[in-house]
Structure formats: C-alpha cells, structure tokens
C-alpha cells in the first residue's frame, strides 16, 4: 500500500515534468490552445474585479455623502409649503437626531471689481454643516449660528472663485456681489474631498452663504430639502420613524407631504444591482471559458492521435492504463492551469487599468481569483477526461503498429 502510494507520487511528479516538456515542445500550438482559457479567465477576472471596484466606489461615495444620514424632501401641503426654522429646531431636538443641514441652493451671477461670472452654484449652509466638516475652511472663519439668526450677508468662497476674482489678493474682507447683493467674504474653503460621484448628487458649490440668507434670496421662507444626521448608535429605521412622528403633526397628518430616504435603502438597492451585474457579466464571460475548454479538448484529442506510438511504447514498457490516463489528464490540467494563472494576472492588470480610467477603486477580490484558477483547472480536468481515457484504452498492439 505504502509502496503503491510512493510509486504513484513518483509517477505524478514525472508526469508533471513530462507534460511541461510536451507543452513547451509545442510552444505555438500550446499557446493558441491556452489562449481560449486565458481570454475566458481574463474576462471573468476583469469584469468581476471592475464591477466590485465600481460598486465599492459607489458605496464609499454614499458613505462620504453621509454615513448615518437621512434625506428628507418636503412636497408640502396647501396650508404649508415647507418647514420653517422653528420646525427644524424641533426636529434637531429629537433624541435620535444629532443635527440637521438644510439644502438651499441657487444659481447666481457673481460680480467683483468689474468682472462677472454667471451660473455659479451658491449653497445655503447651516452652522451644523461646519461642525460636521471641520477642516473644510482653510482661511478665515466658518458661518455660525449668529450669521444664521441675523440673516447676514456674509459668504465663504472656494479656491476657484479666488483664482478667478482675487488673483494675488487676499479675498477675506472684500465685498462680492451675488445677484447684485453685496456680501462680505469671511473665509475660504477647499473643494469638497468627497467629489467624484458624490458631486453628481450634491452638486459642486463655489460659494457658501447662511441658509437663512439663501432662503431670503430665493424669496422663500420655508425649507423643502434637508439632511438629517442621526445620533450615534441609532438605526435609520428608528430615526425615520421618530422623524415621521415629529413631522406628521407639522403637516396636520396629511398624506404624501414629505418623503424620507435613508442611505441604507439606497445602499441595499446598489448592492443588489451590482451583485446582479457581476453575476450576469461573469456568466457571459464563462461562456468563453467553455469555448476555451473545447479548444483544450480538441488539442488533447489531436495529441493522443499523434502520440499513439508513444502510448503503445509506454504500455509495452510496463505502463498501466491508469498511468497513461493520468499523464494525459495532467497535461490538459497543466495546460488550462497555465491559461488560468496567466488569465488572472492579465485580468487584474486590465481591471487596474480600467479602474484608473473610470476612476473607481481597484479591489483585488480573492473570490474572483479562486474562481478563475479553480474554474480553469476544472475545465482542464473535465475536457481532458475524454481524450485521456481514449489514450489509456488504446490497445498497445494497435498503437505499436502505427510506427
């Protein structure tokens, strides 16, 4: 028993080195055969890695937009268009709520010292926004609750505005005209680091003003969009039901007056979507693997026919049928494994390039690598089985007669 195990190991070791020399001896043909598997595995790896990279980018964008935030959009009723400052104070006071930032934005014409820029995004911010984004202000001061209460005409400007209007001049203390109204610049802020996909949703703003001032500029007295920051350890379900309880009386229990959207629900939807995407794309790519497997089978069948004499000779020299079968099985296994490993490397390289182009995160998924290598090895054994069996069943006489 021990002897037969040992001799099997010796055999398999020998088969591996023989199959490598056979594969190497037929470089061009082996390469062409391996190509099918290589393309299949490359496609599977590149697609899965890219999709998971993109989805993790999207997920982190959502997180940067606000982990643990809830957005509320108010449609209002006939009696009440939106929330007023006091309503916000009521909601902020809830135990489940850490703070609220209203979203008030306008597009404006900016004028300073004879220069004019149109279509500039101006955002109304609450002092709580600066509490959350402490290091956004690079020079000067933040907008605080006094500015809010006084509806002050003060603003923060982005680096882009500074470059356009204040070349080589310190902008702080200067006056800038927003839609003709003079504002005093009290500080500078840097671009929101969570740009990219987040910017598509939130819009890039170049000027921040107190939200109360923004409301006044829009000639409205109510807030229709705001983001709620949940207190620590509170689930989004619990927070949204607390918000509902507080907001229902504000709209006299009228239906469809507001919508609450939690980030969790968006993330769940995204996850399901990307999961479906990678399954679908992986499925399509694995067709290429099957085609590659057929290529291997074809090459192995040709090899068996070509090496009939070798098989007969080995049988005459005392090789048993299973030893011949193992030799051919190992050869097809090695062939597709080489394709699989090369495919994984190429696929990772391709998705690295893709992630640079798309601007998504590059995530090496161990699952995808295991899938690529495992699948190609399985293809080698599966499609190598029939040719190997054919070889092992050759009658040594018939095989020798072919010489």
């Amino acid at each position: 028993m021990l002897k037969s195990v040992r001799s099997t190991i010796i055999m398999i070791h020998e088969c591996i080195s023989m199959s490598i020399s056979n594969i190497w001896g037929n470089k061009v043909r082996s390469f062409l055969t391996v190509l099918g598997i290589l393309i299949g595995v490359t496609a599977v790896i590149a697609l899965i890695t890219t999709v998971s990279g993109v989805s993790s980018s999207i997920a982190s964008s959502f997180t940067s937009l606000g982990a643990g935030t809830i957005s509320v959009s108010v449609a209002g009723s006939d009696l009440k268009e939106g929330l007023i400052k006091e309503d916000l104070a009521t909601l902020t006071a809830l135990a489940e709520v850490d703070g609220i930032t209203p979203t008030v934005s306008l597009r404006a014409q900016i004028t300073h010292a004879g220069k004019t820029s149109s279509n500039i995004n101006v955002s109304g911010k609450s002092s709580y926004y600066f509490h959350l984004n402490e290091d956004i202000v690079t020079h000067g001061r933040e907008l605080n609750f006094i500015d809010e209460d006084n509806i002050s005409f003060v603003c923060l400007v982005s680096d882009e505005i500074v470059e356009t209007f204040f070349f080589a001049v310190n902008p702080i203390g200067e006056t800038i005209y927003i839609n003709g109204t003079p504002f005093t610049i009290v500080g500078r802020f840097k671009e929101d680091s969570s740009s990219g996909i987040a910017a598509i949703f939130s819009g890039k703003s170049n000027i921040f003003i107190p939200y109360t001032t923004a409301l006044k500029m829009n000639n409205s007295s109510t807030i229709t969009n705001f983001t709620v920051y949940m207190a620590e350890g509170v689930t989004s379900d619990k927070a949204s039901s607390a918000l509902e309880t507080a907001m229902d009386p504000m709209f006299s229990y009228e239906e469809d007056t507001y919508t609450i959207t939690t980030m969790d629900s968006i993330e769940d939807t995204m996850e399901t979507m990307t999961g479906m995407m990678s399954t679908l794309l992986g499925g399509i790519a694995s067709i290429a693997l099957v085609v590659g497997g057929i290529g291997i089978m074809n090459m192995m069948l040709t090899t068996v026919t070509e090496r009939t004499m070798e098989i007969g000779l080995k049988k005459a020299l005392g090789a048993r049928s299973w030893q011949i079968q193992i030799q051919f099985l190992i050869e097809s296994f090695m062939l597709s494994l080489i394709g699989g490993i090369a495919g994984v490397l190429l696929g990772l390289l391709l998705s690295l390039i893709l992630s640079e182009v798309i601007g998504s995160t590059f995530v090496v998924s161990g699952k995808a690598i295991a899938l690529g290598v495992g699948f190609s090895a399985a293809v080698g054994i599966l499609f190598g089985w029939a040719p190997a069996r054919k070889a092992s069943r050759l009658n040594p006489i018939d095989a020798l007669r072919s010489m």
Partner: protein
Amino acid sequence: MTTSHFFQMQNICKDYFMGDEVAHILKNINLTIDEGEYLSVLGPSGSGKSTLMNIIGCLDVPTSGNYILRGRAVEDLTTGELADLRSQEIGFIFQNSQLLPRLNAIRNVELPLIYAGVRPKERRRRAAAMLERVGLSDRMFHYPNQLSGGQQQRVAIARALIGNPSILLADEPTGALDQKTGRQIMELFKTINDEGRTILMITHDMNIAANAHRVVHIIDGVLTEGGSTKDA
C-alpha cells in the same frame, strides 16, 4: 511441469476478424523456450511472426491455446496484471529503436523504471550504469536525433534491460542498421545471453538468425523447428 522451461505455448491460434472474413494469423503454434536460451524466429513478412512476438510479450492474447510464462497462465491475467508482467519479465526491442524524441538518452532508458515506481536518484544511477554497459557512457545526455542508428539501438537495448527482465524480445533489431553496426549489435546480444538472459529474436534475415542457438521457422502462421545452429 518442467521448471527449466521459460515459457511453453500449446496450440496457440490467433484469428483476426475483418468484417465477415476470418484471417488465421497463427495456426496451432507449439513452442517451448528454456531459461537462458537464445532463440530466433525466422520468417518472411506477413508470416505472423510479429503477432507471435506480441503474444509472447503479453501485449496481445491468443484466440485459443495455452501460454504459460514462468509458471503463470497468461490468458487468465487482467490487462493490469499483463502490464505488471511486461514491466517485470520482458524487455522489448523494436526495429527502429522507438526512442521518445523529446527525452535524452538517459531519460529514455529510465522510462520503464518510472512506471515501476523507482525513485529518481536510483533511476538515474541504474540508467547511467546500463548506458555504460552498452558502451554509451559518453552519449548519456544526447537526444535521439543526435545519435546514429546503432547508438539509438544501443539506447533501446539499455532501456529493455533496465528493468532486469528475464527475457529480451527483439523484433528485427538490426533491420534498420547497416551490416557492420548490425554485427556489433549481435555481439552485444551474445554478451547479454552469455550472462544468462533468455533472448527471443524475430527476423527475416537468415544470417542474423544464425546468431541464435536455435532457429524456428514461421511461414503462413505455421511454426516448424529448424534445429540448433550450435550443433551445425
């Protein structure tokens, strides 16, 4: 049972079926060979001598008749047991040496030991010793296409002997060689036989057959004793 018989064939027949027709390749062959004998089977091509060699070499089984090799009835063995028997008892030499072109001389000689499960170091040592014995110690790492016909045949002889078989089966061992090289191979055969190994050689060449102790003739599947060349 006589213990000195290496093998004993009784009424061996081999038929091939080609469609409806039956070709009787071997007809009632009775042949006995003793341990240490050097026998040659002489016959023209198509006489059935290769089929006979395949049956003796356990590559093929007879249609009818008994074949006892070293006390074992070959017709009762499974294909696996036949493979083991080939590996332990029989060394084959073919007409055109049949070396694997992608392996060098020493690797070709090692081949039977791989299937017998011998460790690489031991294999190498034995193959080197065997190549030295056939006079090729300076050609061990040459590939078949770098060797002359005679040298290739010597490698094939080394390969046939490496498993220490009790019989050497040679099918036209000099068929592809010139006269001078053929003579050298025959001298090597004589040395091998002098060491006590049984040899059975198949040939169509009377001069080559004359190297053996005993010659039998085969024509159209019928075997006739040709007597001992030693006595002549």
